[in-house]
């Protein structure tokens, strides 16, 4: 049961994440002037759902906060509080706290301090968002949500509201014996029950009340049929009878009143206890089953509340944000298993096509099979794909925080957030994205004063976009800030020993230096960027995903960082290389260029190290066969080999291989955990001929490999 609950709770937190994204999107739209009812209703419902689940799972603090937040949203939704800039701003801030509450409920971080915000929300409720001072913030606070127990699964009592109306349409099985039964013993309960005339509407059934009372040991002692009309006037859907019952005194009063939960409001109910000795019963009116029931339902029919349109309501925004339509949740590992199997299928297919002659391939309709296989593979991969919006969702808040910290004004434009990317990729681009945004605010966007001086609007713009092109997703962070100050970057790189003072670099190469390890131009270590992790971390994270980072910058106009990411982590664009009579897969993302060395171009530096001279600069060269301790039967000279220049965290390095066999997409298979991990091997794949090739992990391979003479060299061009 607990496992099951944990699982359900995990789903609840997923829903929270979705809800937060929806709410943030809606609030941001509201801040931008979109006050459509769909937008506001979407935000309301997102917060409302979080509240609902938080109660069910016993997250009291989250429940209390979301409840108060929801109250304000409800009033905004109902038009009672205008969504002014001030109100929207408060709601955005409340949203931030709500996010923290959700995180805390998941055990990620402490409970946020929310007292001030709660007071603020109450003030808005109190003043209807007019900005007036609240009467007394404390008093204004409505009782927090229906409280939940600290952690219990189902803490709270059920509040049954009953507006039902029973009516015993079904003739009650009362025998004359019952009616003539002896008077109740003293101390017993005496009950009189007159269902309202309309008691049987709305699916209620007064008979069930009688039956339940009988199950408690009650006996019907009388039925008053005085109100029963003539048969021709009788409306079978109305209730005309009055029942009296007696129950043993040992039955709890609450158990009796509970029976009336759904019939109470309009029905007359008396529950009296016979005085033990005294003949005069001390009459006590039955308390309403629940405190709220009375005002809710008794008395006059409710004021004609605005009726809800019955037809599917055109809540347009929903379709976009909430397309829950028909979905099932599937354990990710099942999808991975499926993807793995499809990968096998693809491989078997290519083995077949290698082994069969073109004629045989046609005969067995292999091309058709290959096409279907490919389609299945695409489909399965799309199952793991999710809108990149998830990764984008935390950006608006970050920007608000950054604006507050830096005093810079930034507006965000988001494009292509519905672009679908593999879930694994989404999870892993969060950090690089965060850093790129921070970098853009910290180093790109100027202060409002500087912007005005430069003839720009005081508010900077960051454009966050995603688009798919072929098998790649391009995620861009573009700012309209000052652009990269190349003089300064260059000077810094020289100072840090990243390039030599006389290096000749193109503008693009200088821009790339930002991603060099250990590079940071921040003159003062700000709270935001420049904490020792810089764009080099972005670069290495993205490359670990098989992606690349590109930078374009125009002085005075802004900088664009582009992450080119693979659509999936299961397939790798690889170069099949051969050394020591074996084939290996080199991730194409790492490959800068391939060089067939001229005699003398590869030179020994020390007895154990070599360099290659490339357009005036020297790069270290490693023989892959040596690195893996694989001796070839016919060791080749450099001139008989190829040097592949790869781009790694450690800078550009030449890897010497015998030949390049092919370039193809390979399905990544992870190596069994029982195998001893070998540094530099990231996985394996099965090639078209059925043989297995290991996939090289360049960064891991070269990490720690000595290359003391290696200057970081953008694109392996200069140093």
């Amino acid at each position: 049961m607990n496992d099951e609950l944990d699982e359900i709770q995990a789903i609840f937190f997923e829903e929270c994440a979705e809800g937060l994204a929806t709410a943030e999107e809606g609030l941001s739209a509201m801040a931008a002037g979109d006050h459509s009812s769909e937008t506001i209703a979407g935000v309301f419902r997102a917060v409302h759902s979080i509240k609902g689940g938080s109660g069910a799972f016993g997250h009291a603090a989250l429940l209390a906060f979301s409840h108060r937040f929801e109250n304000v949203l409800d009033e905004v939704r109902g038009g009672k509080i205008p969504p002014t800039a001030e109100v929207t701003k408060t709601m955005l801030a409340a949203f931030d706290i709500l996010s923290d509450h959700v995180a805390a409920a998941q055990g990620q971080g402490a409970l946020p301090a929310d007292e001030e915000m709660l007071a603020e929300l109450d003030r808005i409720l109190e003043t209807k968002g007019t900005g007036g001072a609240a009467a007394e913030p404390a008093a204004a606070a409505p009782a927090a949500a229906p409280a939940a127990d600290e952690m219990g699964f189902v803490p709270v009592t059920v509040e049954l509201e009953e507006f039902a109306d029973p009516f015993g349409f079904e003739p009650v099985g009362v025998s004359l014996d019952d009616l003539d039964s002896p008077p109740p013993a003293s101390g017993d309960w005496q009950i009189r029950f007159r269902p309202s005339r309309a008691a049987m509407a709305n699916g209620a059934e007064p008979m069930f009340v009688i039956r339940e009372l009988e199950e408690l040991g009650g006996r019907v002692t009388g039925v008053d049929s005085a109100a029963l009309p003539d048969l021709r006037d009788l409306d079978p859907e109305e209730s005309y009878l009055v029942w009296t019952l007696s129950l043993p005194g040992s039955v709890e009063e609450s158990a009796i009143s509970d029976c009336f939960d759904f019939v109470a409001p309009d029905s007359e109910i008396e529950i009296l206890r016979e005085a033990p000795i005294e003949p005069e019963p001390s009459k006590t009116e039955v308390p309403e089953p629940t405190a709220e029931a009375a005002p809710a339902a008794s008395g006059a029919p409710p004021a004609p509340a605005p009726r809800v349109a019955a037809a599917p309501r055109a809540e347009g925004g929903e379709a976009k944000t909430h397309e829950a339509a028909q979905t099932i949740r599937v354990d990710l590992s099942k999808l991975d298993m499926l993807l793995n199997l499809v990968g096998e299928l693809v491989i078997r297919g290519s083995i077949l096509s290698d082994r069969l002659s073109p004629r045989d391939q046609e005969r067995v309709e292999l091309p058709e099979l290959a096409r279907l296989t490919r389609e299945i593979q695409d489909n399965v991969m799309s199952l793991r794909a999710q809108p990149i919006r998830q990764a984008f969702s935390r950006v608006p808040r970050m920007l608000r925080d950054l604006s507050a910290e830096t005093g810079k004004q930034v507006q965000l434009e988001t494009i292509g957030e519905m672009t679908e990317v593999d879930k694994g990729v989404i999870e892993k681009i969060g950090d690089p994205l965060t850093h790129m945004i921070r970098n853009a605010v910290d180093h790109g966007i100027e202060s409002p004063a500087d912007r005005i001086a430069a003839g720009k609007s005081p508010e900077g713009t960051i454009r966050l976009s995603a688009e798919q092109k072929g098998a790649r997703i391009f995620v861009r962070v573009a700012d309209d800030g000052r652009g990269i100050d190349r003089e300064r970057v260059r000077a810094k790189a020289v100072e840090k020993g990243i390039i030599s003072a006389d290096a000749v670099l193109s503008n693009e190469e200088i821009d790339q230096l930002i991603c060099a390890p250990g590079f940071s131009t921040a003159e003062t270590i700000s709270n935001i960027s420049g904490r020792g992790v810089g764009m080099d971390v972005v670069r290495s994270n993205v490359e670990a995903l098989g992606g690349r980072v590109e930078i374009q910058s125009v002085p005075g106009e802004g900088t664009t960082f582009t992450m080119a990411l693979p659509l999936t982590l299961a397939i790798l664009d690889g170069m099949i290389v051969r050394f020591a009579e074996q084939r290996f897969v080199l991730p194409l993302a790492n490959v800068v260029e391939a060089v067939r060395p001229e005699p003398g171009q590869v030179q020994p530096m020390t007895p154990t190290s070599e360099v290659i001279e490339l357009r005036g600069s020297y790069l270290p060269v490693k023989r892959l066969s040596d690195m893996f301790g694989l001796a070839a039967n016919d060791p080749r000279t450099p001139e008989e080999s190829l040097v592949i220049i790869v781009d790694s965290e450690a800078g550009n390095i030449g890897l010497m291989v015998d030949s390049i066999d092919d370039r193809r997409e390979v399905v990544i298979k992870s190596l069994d955990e029982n195998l001893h991990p070998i540094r530099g091997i990231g996985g394996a794949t099965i090639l078209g001929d059925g043989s297995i090739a290991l996939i090289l992990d360049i960064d891991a391979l070269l990490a720690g490999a000595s290359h003391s003479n290696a200057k970081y060299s953008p694109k392996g061009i200069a140093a």
Partner: protein
Amino acid sequence: MSKLILTVDDSASMRMLLKTSLTAQGFTIEGANDGVHGLERIQEVNPDLLITDINMPKMDGFGLIEEVRKLPQFRGLPILVLSTEFSDEKKARAREAGATGWITKPFDATKLGAAIRRVCP
């Protein structure tokens, strides 16, 4: 025979929670994730009881109840609202739409079961 309950809620976790706790009490549970879906499902599964949330996309609980009540076969169907809302106004609206009763989330599984048996013994 075990009573069949259709639960309509846009939150998957809430539906699962209901299913888990009510299945354990001998009920059979079907689910739908919004009002429109609920209206479709109710005609397919013909339940003994409908439990619906109020705030849902596409068609909310009030709309669903009104639509269900328009179908002759469900005029007498017990319908319980299970919602975090508890304002008198909302309850009045639900009642006007044709709901049998209102249960406030979060719920206690045992008491929810008792409440269900009260309208659907």
